[in-house]
């Protein structure tokens, strides 16, 4: 069937019949069909899409708001819901116009657990009120912040000081009221701050925990300590200038972020990158995935007392750094991808370096596995700790290794292949019960799979150009610029006006090291993105943290935190 000129495998007729005139119009964005619906109908629409057997859009991929003041004259805000049917590998979007005068819409928290934090973020950044949300409080900005920074009329340079950190007791009180817990004794409880500066809080995360003895009764995470305004900054930079900002989202695997971002822009432009570029992107993505898993597991093992592994795994990481540095010029923040291609082609030493890594990686990882895989202390600390089932994990928006650890083999590289991943042979490792042990082991297993992919990609890599031939996307070569009038004009145009991105919006997601990393980009046809929203995998995963640690021991909370691979740059953006 077709919706708004997009071919879909799903038959949306029952949905359209159910909503009737709740549907305002049918539309499209890059990557999926769109239904514009009345805001009164949103709860019904989401429930129907989620539960109806022929639809089953069971994951809320992202939820955000667009400030349409510069786009059209209609209602000021659009609430955007991106849904994904994991079973049928299809996406759909809902948009609800929300007027500025009474900016409210019904909350989706009863339907999707990850809606809790997503709605808090949308409220914080845009001031749209989600009715029925249990705790609609700022999440990224601090409690004394006035205004909503992502509204177009908020000045980007207007910083606001905070006089004192939030005590979070109001949130604890809400939890007490909504979720009273049976107590095993009448001993007094203790409230304790874990973080924001704590050895096991990777980056700066803070948790207020209420303890009964050593058992965690309630955990209240506070995030936003590293909210450094990625989205607002992206709106003030040209498309290619945003690439360095993406490095610093998940800085453990910067290259994957580069690739994910430029891919979203490329889809918006409707360009197909060259074959060679695809292969190079696959290689750097997989090397970055290995690096990311190394840091995550190394830090997680340190937190549960296994320090030696950290030295083993970091040595390997240093080797990968060296190879990537020879390619991109930077160890950590590579900024290597460009819209339509890459900053530069590879060189022969790079390929030798990758071959060396293919030999070294299994060695280092096996050394570590020898130390931990059958280690009694490690098993005692991880097996059965922080377990979560598939169904619940999906409701929290889990993707990547954390979802696969629950036993659900879902990997975007297999399900919705991009960049030629369907040409490579690899397995998707999965766990059994979604506990810390499974998460650690899935990551270790994925390192070996990534090596397999890199090996195949290196062997099959075709020759040819790395950049597309597209005068309004890629800057012409020096020879052309100085040798022909068209070359000169194109050069001038790109330097002055940047990449030419047509009006419209679109979403593209790839399988990053942490899970689905996606960018929802709105373009108004100008040289800078009108809006650039990141679907950060760990933001949604971390929102399940209270669920995973409550009822467990406080020491286990540390093990669970490490296994989720929460990267503050991506979490807080």
């Amino acid at each position, binding site marked *: 069937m077709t919706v708004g000129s997009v071919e879909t495998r799903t038959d949306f007729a029952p949905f359209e019949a159910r909503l009737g005139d709740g549907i305002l119009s049918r539309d499209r964005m890059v990557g999926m069909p769109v239904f514009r619906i009345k805001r009164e109908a949103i709860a019904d629409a989401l429930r129907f899409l989620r539960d109806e057997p022929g639809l089953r859009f069971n994951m809320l991929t992202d939820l955000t708001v667009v400030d349409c003041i510069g786009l059209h004259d209609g209602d000021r805000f659009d609430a955007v819901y991106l849904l994904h049917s994991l079973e049928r590998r299809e996406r759909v979007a809902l948009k609800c116009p929300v007027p500025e005068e009474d900016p409210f819409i019904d909350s989706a928290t009863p339907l999707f657990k990850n809606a809790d934090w997503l709605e808090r973020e949308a409220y914080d950044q845009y001031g749209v009120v989600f009715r029925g949300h249990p705790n609609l409080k700022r999440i990224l900005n601090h409690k004394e912040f006035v205004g909503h920074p992502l509204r177009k009329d908020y000045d980007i340079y207007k910083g606001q000081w905070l*006089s004192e950190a939030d005590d979070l007791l109001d949130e604890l009180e809400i939890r007490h009221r909504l979720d009273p817990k049976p107590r095993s004794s009448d001993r007094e409880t203790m409230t304790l701050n874990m973080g924001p*500066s704590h050895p096991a809080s990777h*980056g700066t995360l803070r948790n207020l925990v209420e303890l009964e003895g050593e058992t965690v009764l309630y955990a209240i995470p506070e995030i936003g300590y590293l909210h*450094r305004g990625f989205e607002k900054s992206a709106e003030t930079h040209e498309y290619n200038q945003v690439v360095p900002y993406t490095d610093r989202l998940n800085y453990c695997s910067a290259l994957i972020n580069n690739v994910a971002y430029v891919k979203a822009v490329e889809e918006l432009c409707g360009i197909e990158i060259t074959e060679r570029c695809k292969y190079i992107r696959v290689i750097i993505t997989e090397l970055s995935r290995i690096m990311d898993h190394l840091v995550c597991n190394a830090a997680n093992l340190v937190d549960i007392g296994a320090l030696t592994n950290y030295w083993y795994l970091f040595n390997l990481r240093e080797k990968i750094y060296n190879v990537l540095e020879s390619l991109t010029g930077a160890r*950590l923040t590579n900024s290597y991808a460009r819209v339509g291609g890459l900053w530069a082609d590879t060189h022969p030493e790079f390929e030798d370096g990758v071959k060396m890594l293919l030999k070294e990686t299994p060695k280092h990882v096996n050394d570590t596995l020898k130390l931990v895989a059958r280690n009694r202390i490690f098993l005692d600390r991880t097996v059965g700790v922080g377990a979560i089932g598939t169904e619940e994990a999906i409701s929290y928006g889990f993707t990547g290794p954390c979802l696969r650890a629950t036993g659900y083999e879902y990997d975007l590289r297999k399900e919705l292949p991009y960049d030629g991943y369907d040409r490579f042979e690899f397995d998707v490792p999965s766990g059994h019960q979604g506990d810390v042990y499974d998460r650690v082991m899935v990551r270790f297993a994925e390192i070996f799979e990534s090596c397999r992919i890199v090996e195949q990609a290196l062997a099959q890599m075709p020759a040819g150009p790395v950049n597309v031939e597209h005068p309004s996307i890629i800057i012409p070569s020096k020879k052309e610029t100085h040798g022909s009038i068209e070359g000169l004009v194109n050069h001038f145009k790109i330097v002055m006006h940047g990449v030419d991105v047509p009006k419209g919006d679109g979403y593209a997601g790839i399988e990053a090291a942490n899970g689905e990393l996606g960018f929802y980009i709105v373009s108004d046809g100008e040289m800078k993105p009108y809006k650039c929203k990141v679907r950060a995998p760990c933001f949604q995963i971390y929102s399940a943290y209270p669920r995973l640690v409550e009822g467990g021991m406080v020491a286990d909370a540390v093990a669970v935190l490490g296994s989720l691979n929460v990267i*503050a740059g991506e979490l807080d953006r």
Partner: protein
Amino acid sequence: MTDQKGKGSGAGADRVATGRFTTDEIPPESVMLTRLDAALNWARKNSLWPLPFGTACCAIEFMGMVSSVFDLSRFGAEVVRFSPRQSDLLIVAGTVTYKQAPILRRIYEQMAEPKWVISMGVCASSGGFYDNYCTLQGIDKVIPVDYYVAGCPPRPEAVLQALVEIQNRIVANPAPR
């Protein structure tokens, strides 16, 4: 001991009568004379206990600096402490936001004197390329800084140089603050 001059009446009184050690009975190679603050500074210099206030990407490079390739322990500073009361070198590695500023300040205040601060990376030093509504434009707006390291992130060698520089300063400074 010099001010015992003339006052001595006990067993060692004869030997300090001149106001100096007579080194007759002490083998020269087993004694080193120095000023107390110099000795303390020497100890301080070689046993800096850093508190990594790691917030962002720079913290990952800090981890790299501690790991075996760059090996912070060569400089006696590998005992990383997250308790401000146990550490004397604050390494601010990463972006500090307005939301974070009161916490950074509190941590600095909790550290015992003498203490030193390294600002690692351009974010900590000046806000870096995050010139926007939520990022503090340099940690020196809330705490004093002894050494700024440029780079985004700085290479581990650059931070090691900052450490050595702090060590030199410790030795050169007769009365640490």
